[in-house]
């Protein structure tokens, strides 16, 4: 990590993940895969199994209310949570959207608990840019 004084009185820090950047280029699909069509043997059961393998059921971490949620440097004032009730990430996202935070509607937020402040902090998974 390196630090230097920036020109507006801010302490500027560079966090050192630069060397951990990974470049991922999708390998070309094999010809056999690209041209594969479903055979008559691929019934609904086969399809269901394939779907299950592609998206295995995962157990979401749960967080028991009360907790704070931090977003844009603020602790959000939210309604809809019940004391003592555990909430999954999907349920927390739903409460956020119901409270007008529609920016979380079409993204996949993950929540991590900061025990020191009893605060959930948010990570947006798979945020994409392109041009």
């Amino acid at each position: 990590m390196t630090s230097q004084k920036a020109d507006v009185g801010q302490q500027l820090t560079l966090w050192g993940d630069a060397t951990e950047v990974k470049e991922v280029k999708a390998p070309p699909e094999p010809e056999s895969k690209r041209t594969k069509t479903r055979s008559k043997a691929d019934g609904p059961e086969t399809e269901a199994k394939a779907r299950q393998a592609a998206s295995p059921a995962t157990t979401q971490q749960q967080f028991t209310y009360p907790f704070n949620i931090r977003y844009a440097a603020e602790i959000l004032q939210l309604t809809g949570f019940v004391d003592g009730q555990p909430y999954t990430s999907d349920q927390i996202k739903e409460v956020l959207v119901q409270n007008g935070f529609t920016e979380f509607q079409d993204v996949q937020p993950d929540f991590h608990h900061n025990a020191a402040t009893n605060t959930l902090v948010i990570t947006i998974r798979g945020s994409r840019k392109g041009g």
Partner: protein
Amino acid sequence: MVKISGDALWQVQAMFKATYVEEQSEDRVLIYQNATGDLALYRPRMSRSVVHVECDVQLTVIKDGQEWDLIADLHSHHIMGGDWSPIDDANERLRGILFGLFSWKEGHDVWLFRRWNGQTYEPVMYNEVVAIG
């Protein structure tokens, strides 16, 4: 509105140019701020190519017991040039965050900035967010 130092932005655009020259890919940098106003530039783990970049974005980072909040999300374009793409539009809808786009396709450095207000994008002028000298 928080101002980013010209020094910090220069480091970011130098990194963006280096990434394109060395790897022909886009790049992305996140800027965080703590309670005392210090800034941190963070280049997250990402997948990238000449036309896209993708990563997880932590809106708050806990580091050494301090909370650092995301204040800016900057990325580069090299093929498309200095304009927001539809993918950008779909992924830049967090209120309170400054979104920045850097391009040098046309032979000179171009920075564009904007914010999402919950309904639409508001363009932000360079001198509103960058402190020079």
